[in-house]
């Protein structure tokens, strides 16, 4: 298995290189540069031209790309022009926020989806199943941002149960329980909505899995052994139905990252998604390229993770 993983990792390298070139060229194609906006009657265009040159923005793209890659290997993704600090540090800070939010979202999502999926599958075609199905349809039908917006307005503005922006309150001191409590408090609403929104896929997979597996021969074998129904369900039907879900776990990272753009923008939560949108408007190349690359990398990692999980949970996939 290690060999397979290593091979997958090696395959990632050319993918990453391609991705980096693509990302870099795209970022370069964006109109203007980070210094374009720095105009007040007081600023000196000559100084700005000078800054541009110093940042290497006048070099041909391949030179810039080369420098960028070389620096990247030294852990230096460049400076954010708008934040005036190293991109690595900036993203690092945001990534932590995104990570916690994503983690909570995943936990909530599966926490809801698994029981729902199991109920829907086990009691196929009953009222329970139909209600759950309707729920997933509504979720699927609306773009996720509408739900985020709805959650924000109802629970943030109208009911005021949760904070409507930020990731921690000012008076919480890092390291204290209160600090983590405050962070959690800031994450609950986005994570809850995000979790609910992302349940539909899991529910449908699980439902289908349970229904299909119930009719499998090996379930009949288990019954013929006299295994009690409860055990038949848990050990034989459910475990096999959870396979695709487990495998999807890694890939769900990808979905969450894409979704973070909406969540973080709507909830003014300082994560990578929000950073990306604001960097786009500010043309902060170094941040845009780094983030896009990072997202790509995480997607790859998600795929890899899925494969690894799959090979752990499914003996048929275990090769070599």
């Amino acid at each position, binding site marked *: 298995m290690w*060999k397979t993983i*290593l*091979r997958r990792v090696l395959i990632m390298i050319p993918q990453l290189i391609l991705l980096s070139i693509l990302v870099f060229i795209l970022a370069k194609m964006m109109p203007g540069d980070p210094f374009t906006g720095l105009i007040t009657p007081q600023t000196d265009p000559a100084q700005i031209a000078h800054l541009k040159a110093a940042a290497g923005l006048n070099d041909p793209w391949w030179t810039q790309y080369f420098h960028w890659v070389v620096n990247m290997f030294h852990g230096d993704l460049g400076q954010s022009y708008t934040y005036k600090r190293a991109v690595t540090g900036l993203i690092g800070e945001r990534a932590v926020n995104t990570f916690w939010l994503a983690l909570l979202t995943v936990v909530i999502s599966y926490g809801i989806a698994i029981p729902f999926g199991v109920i829907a599958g086990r009691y196929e075609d009953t009222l329970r199943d139909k209600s759950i199905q309707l729920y997933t349809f509504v979720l699927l039908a609306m773009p996720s941002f509408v739900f985020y917006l709805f959650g924000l307005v109802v629970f943030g503005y109208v009911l005021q149960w949760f904070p409507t922006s930020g990731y921690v309150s000012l008076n919480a001191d890092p390291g204290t329980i209160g600090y983590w409590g405050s962070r959690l408090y800031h994450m609950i609403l986005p994570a809850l909505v995000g979790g609910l929104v992302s349940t539909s896929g899991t529910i449908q997979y699980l439902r289908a899995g349970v229904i299909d597996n119930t009719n499998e021969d090996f379930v009949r074998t288990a019954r013929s052994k006299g295994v009690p129904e409860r055990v038949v369900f848990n050990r034989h039907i459910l475990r096999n139905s959870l396979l695709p879900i487990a495998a999807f776990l890694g890939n769900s990272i990808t979905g969450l990252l894409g979704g973070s753009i909406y969540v973080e923008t709507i909830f003014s939560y300082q994560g990578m998604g929000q950073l990306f949108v604001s960097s786009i408007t500010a043309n902060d190349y170094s941040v845009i390229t780094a983030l896009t690359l990072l997202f790509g990398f995480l997607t790859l990692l998600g795929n890899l993770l899925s494969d690894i999980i799959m090979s752990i949970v499914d003996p048929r996939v275990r090769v*070599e």
Partner: protein
Amino acid sequence: MALIEIRNLKIHYPIRSGFWNRVTDHVLAVDGVNFDIEEGETYGLIGESGSGKSTIGKAIVGLEPVTSGQIIYKGKDITKAKNRKALQYNKDVQMIFQDSLSSLNPRKRIEDIIAEPIRNFQRLSATEERKRVQELLDIVGMPSDALYKYPHEFSGGQRQRIGVARAVATNPKLIVADEPVSALDLSVQAQVLNFMKRIQEQYNISYLFISHDLGVVKHMCRAMAIMHRGRFVEIGTREDIYTDPKHIYTKRLLAAIPEVKPGDRDAHVAHRKAIEKEFTEEENRYYDKNGRVYDLQRVSDTHQAALPELADGGEA
């Protein structure tokens, strides 16, 4: 003169493995096989699952790229796609498949299914074509309203006969029948086998009849080959094989067939046990170090077997 000659046919599939997922080994699906099919004859091919029977069949109709060796038809090596095209090879060589349902396109009417080879190989007018299809349906004993139906509206036996109709549509010289009756019930199997025989007599078709059911092969074929591990272990006439098997594998295969005579049961079981014992003891002698079947040796005019003694140059 033989209708078709298979010379040292080899079909190997690469096995990819290892770190770079490179080809590390090959499945020797077919590994050096020689035989001829005579005009109007049925040639049987028997062997256990995975022994390479279907692969040979597909190679002969040109569905499987060949690793090496030749298949000679009308003096040309048809393992090359170019030659097949030039000869309109598939007009003369057709195939009947095991799974009657999957071999008929579920979205097509029977008419279109049967007419497909006609349209490709013979330019007929619409009415001529319709007439020909009708005629073919008659030949396989199907009512003419079948024309406008779809495959799923027929039973397994009927579908298999439609498959036969398609195969004979272009008046082929050879039909490769890959387990044509394995999926059928006894009563239906009888129908299909009867049809195949009748058509053979009428049109002087040759069959390569692939099966793992020795009863059926015995019923259908005068000449046959026993396959094991991608190679022939024994070829000969029906009498050679059934009454005088030489290779241990042939003997084992024959002994494994259940007899419908309950009275002889104990004797038969005892015989099988004995052969089985012989097989475990003698296996090494009948296969080389790599488990490969030896080359065929002539036993009689019609009979050849892959016997070890002769391969060693020793005496029979």
